[in-house]
């Protein structure tokens, strides 16, 4: 195992880390944490998307929805598999953790109740995933993960395509279909903005950046996301509470509402007149949202039931 000074030097010189033998315990801890967030996010998106994909308007749309879910499960598998190689017990991670200790973005705790909400999730949540994973794919100092993401990026593109194609189609249909789309965007856009976490001025120190587990800061990732989502929504005639400004010759995306602010998860409604603190947001995240327990139970319950019957039969 390298000394902390030797390890710092390896990271600084751009070396790719290939096995636990080459890392310090601090790096291992941070890498595991980052992988758990990634695995949990992909895993929980499966039940979240499934509950909405059931409402697909055609057989082909249903197949697309199901294929996306299959992709997400495969991406989760990549992260958990690497965690196993790093000494974690995959089965325990997935099936024995308390729902509240899963580390995925709060957005997935708010139910997707229609095909329209599912395709907005594909257009916005998967775009957030694309930015986060694209950055890791580009910069990550841990080789096995960086390489594992090669295919993930192509597949996330397919999810985005589904989101964007359908959003455009629904918007073009006009009338109540377009109104439903606008309502979905109204609550899902700010949740996606929140996805990237604390703003840089409140996050004094990032171990993930220091270890090159990722390359971009929270605000840089958020800007990247805004630079793709805002123009697309404007192009298809959907309103979003953000706009572009030019500052020092550079494009900067500004939000048109206080960030962060109050969210009613049951009503799926933001109160832009009610700014809150990041401490309040962290409390909401920690308490988790309406569908957390139900979604985790979706894959945990059957596992334990099967375990029990299996055991009873003495096999």
């Amino acid at each position, binding site marked *: 195992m390298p000394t902390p000074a030797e390890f710092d030097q390896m990271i600084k010189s751009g070396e790719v880390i290939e096995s636990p033998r080459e890392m310090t315990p601090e790096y291992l801890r941070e890498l595991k944490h980052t992988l758990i967030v990634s695995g949990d996010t992909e895993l929980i998106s499966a039940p979240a998307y499934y509950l909405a994909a059931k409402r697909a308007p055609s057989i*082909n*749309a249903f*197949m*697309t929805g*199901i*294929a*996306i879910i299959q992709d997400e499960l495969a991406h989760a598998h990549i992260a958990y598999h690497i965690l196993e190689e790093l000494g974690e017990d995959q089965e325990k991670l997935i099936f024995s953790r308390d729902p509240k200790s899963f580390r995925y973005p709060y957005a997935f705790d708010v139910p997707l109740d229609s095909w329209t909400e599912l395709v907005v999730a594909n257009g916005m949540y998967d775009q957030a995933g694309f930015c986060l994973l694209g950055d890791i794919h580009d910069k990550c100092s841990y080789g096995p993960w960086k390489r594992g993401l*090669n*295919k993930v990026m*192509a*597949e996330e*593109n*397919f999810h985005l*395509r*589904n989101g964007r*194609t359908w959003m455009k189609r629904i918007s073009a249909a006009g009338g109540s279909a377009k109104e439903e789309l606008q309502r979905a965007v109204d609550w899902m856009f700010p949740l996606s903005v929140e996805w990237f976490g604390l703003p840089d001025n409140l996050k004094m120190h990032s171990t993930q950046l220091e270890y090159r587990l990722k390359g971009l800061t929270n605000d840089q990732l958020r800007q990247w996301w805004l630079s793709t989502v805002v123009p697309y929504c404007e192009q298809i005639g959907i309103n979003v509470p953000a706009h572009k400004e030019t500052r020092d010759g550079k494009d900067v995306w500004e939000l048109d509402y206080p960030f962060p602010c109050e969210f009613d998860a049951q009503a799926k409604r933001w109160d832009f007149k009610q700014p809150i603190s990041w401490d309040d947001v962290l409390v909401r995240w920690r308490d988790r949202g309406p569908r957390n327990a139900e979604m985790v139970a979706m894959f945990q319950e059957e596992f334990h039931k099967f375990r029990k019957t299996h055991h009873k039969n003495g096999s």
Partner: protein
Amino acid sequence: MTQRLWAALAEVQDPEMPVNLVDLGVVYGIDEHDGVVEVDLTFTAMGCPASEFILEDVRERLLREDGVREVRVNVVWDPPWTSARLTQAGRDALESWGLAV
């Protein structure tokens, strides 16, 4: 003209894999009469989750060609697609992406 149409479809990427439709070997035939293009096309699997996107992309790309006013796509399943239909370029693209073909 059909040669130009084949070249046009060679610009249409599969939505899931980094390979174009011609190198993937899913385009079975292109016919053109008086600006009406007929395409025989298959999918790599009957449950292809990207089929609607592919049909849309084929239509959209061919309609951008001069002299094309209508595109009819026939989805065919005979002969079934197998990996033997990949061109060498398609094979190389998929292999470099990490797919065994």
